């Protein structure tokens, strides 16, 4: 009886913080944007609200355009609802018919992001036309380092890159601002090769 009561509770009461979303097209584009902005170490949540056979058969364990985003503490948490391949089992159908139950069987992973303070510091030292390129490069490195060394070391490496970059960038910025070409160039040559 307890077990059934729990199941009924799960089905009838969506978990706190879960946001059921109805506008699937808008949500799909949101997710695409989100994927571009936060590419690192995340699992996408696909939860079927109104699945069809074609959706289910599209890809393995993924129902396109049907997902739910749960906002927790920063950074954003995504629940992976496209679980292991029990597509035909009762738990699969239960999950897809009553998606909010998924939270209780899904695994959640914290999204890794580059250290925001370091990113801000880097942005401050750069001219606005270069911010996109340099921060993009740093992101690319961060993703690669995450895969190679893990998130913690990747963050350390990110910080080290930023701190090593500040000197040359500030010197360059001063050179641009004051137009003291000769002095700044001499200083740069002496200290930064």
């Amino acid at each position, binding site marked *: 009886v307890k077990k059934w009561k729990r199941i009924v509770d799960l089905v009838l009461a969506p978990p706190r913080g879960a946001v059921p979303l109805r506008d699937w097209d808008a949500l799909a584009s949101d997710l695409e*944007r989100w*994927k*571009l*902005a*936060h*590419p*690192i170490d995340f699992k996408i949540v696909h939860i079927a609200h109104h699945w069809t056979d074609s959706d289910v058969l599209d890809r393995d364990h993924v129902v396109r355009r049907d997902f739910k985003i749960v906002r927790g503490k920063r950074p954003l948490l995504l629940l992976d609802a496209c679980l292991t391949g029990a597509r035909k089992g009762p738990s699969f159908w239960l999950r897809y018919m009553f998606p909010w139950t998924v939270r209780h069987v899904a695994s959640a992973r914290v999204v890794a992001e580059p250290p925001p303070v370091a990113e801000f510091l*880097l942005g401050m*030292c*750069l001219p606005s036309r*270069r911010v*996109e*390129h*340099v*921060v*993009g*490069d*740093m*992101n*690319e*490195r961060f*993703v*690669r380092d995450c895969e190679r060394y893990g998130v913690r070391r990747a963050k350390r490496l990110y910080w080290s*890159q*930023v701190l*090593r*970059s*500040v*000197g*040359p*960038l500030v*010197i*360059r910025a001063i050179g641009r601002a004051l137009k003291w070409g000769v002095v700044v160039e001499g200083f*740069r*040559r002496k200290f*930064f*090769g």
Partner: protein
Amino acid sequence: MDIGLLEQHVLLAVQGLHPNAYGVAIQDRIKALAGYEPSIGSVYAAIERLENKGFLKSRQGEPTRERGGRAKLYVTVTAPGQKTLKESLRAIDSLRGLKPAGALL
């Protein structure tokens, strides 16, 4: 017009990576072939100096997922840049008492 050591390395890396030279790739190439890793800030500062001198030109690349949706800045060596690089390498070779390596470029 003279160029510094890092600028010389950046020019060589850009030439070697042509046409896919951008910040991280340049940094990786210098690390792999020259044995030290310049910071990304140093690389971009050098790129900017070389651009101002007219030795590099840049174009905006495509944004990708792993870059957080941000675009790359591809750079290529201009004709004056190639000439300066050749002269710089030739000077080094002359000082070392070697035949000029400029022919390699």
